[in-house]
């Protein structure tokens, strides 16, 4: 990629469109020569953010809301992805670590609550902005890129 560039994708806030976001992400990340494993990580992180917009932003109703995804290609190696909705806002809990299952008993574990935790585990950085809906800004650098510059 010669210059910084951005790609914008907007899909209906419905479950059947989340895989389209993954497909576009794949296309961009492959172009940037991210590794297979890095692409898989990003797919999950981005899907989690989209799932949240679909499930939580618009009260779970199919009311015509959309999920807007912006991909910023920063230099040769960094991809920043912003997933935003214009639905209800929320106050993100500070303690994401406790949302995983580690060290819990089978009686304690619950399905749900893993989305934001996974985004943070899979990306280099994740920031949640809530004002007129939610924007999750996450970014990842190519591993090979980091290595090459050592």
């Amino acid at each position, binding site marked *: 990629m010669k210059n910084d560039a951005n790609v914008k994708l907007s899909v209906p806030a419905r*479950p*059947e469109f*989340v*895989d389209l976001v*993954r497909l576009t992400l794949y296309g961009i990340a492959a172009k940037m020569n991210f590794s297979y*494993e890095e692409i*898989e990580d990003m*797919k*999950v992180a981005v*899907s*989690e953010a989209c*799932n949240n917009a*679909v*499930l939580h932003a618009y009260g779970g109703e199919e009311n015509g809301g959309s999920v807007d995804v912006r991909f910023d290609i920063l230099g040769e190696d960094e991809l920043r992805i912003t997933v935003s909705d214009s639905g209800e806002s929320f106050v993100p809990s500070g303690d994401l670590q406790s949302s*995983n*299952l*580690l*060290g*819990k008993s*089978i009686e304690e*574990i*619950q*399905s*749900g609550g*893993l*989305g934001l*935790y*996974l985004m943070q*585990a*899979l990306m280099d950085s994740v920031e949640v902005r809530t004002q007129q809906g939610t924007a999750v800004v996450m970014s990842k650098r190519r591993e090979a890129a980091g290595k090459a510059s050592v």
Partner: protein
Amino acid sequence: MQTDKLTFRTENLDGTTVVHIAGELDLEVASQMRATMEPLMELGDRKLVLNLRDLKYIDSTGIGILIGILKARHAKQAPFAVEEVPATIRKLFDMTGITPFLTAAESYSNGSPK
């Protein structure tokens, strides 16, 4: 809508039901997955095994479904396991912490056909 996003093939062995799950397990197909698993989860006297060899994608929606099955089977004292977990999916199981709940049972089905 594509109909082949997630497919199931059920194999009834002696005392064990193996469900081969192929494709992408995400929000779109979550209710399809739950509906398929519901009756199988009820069979408390059979071991239930999910073979994930051909599962290409899972996210927290799918992991949440697995947690639901785990808890339901545990409540029934009925055996449950996953087998042939691809590396990318294994990584997510490890990250979320679901692996220890799946491994005890998994070791037991290691001799399954490749």
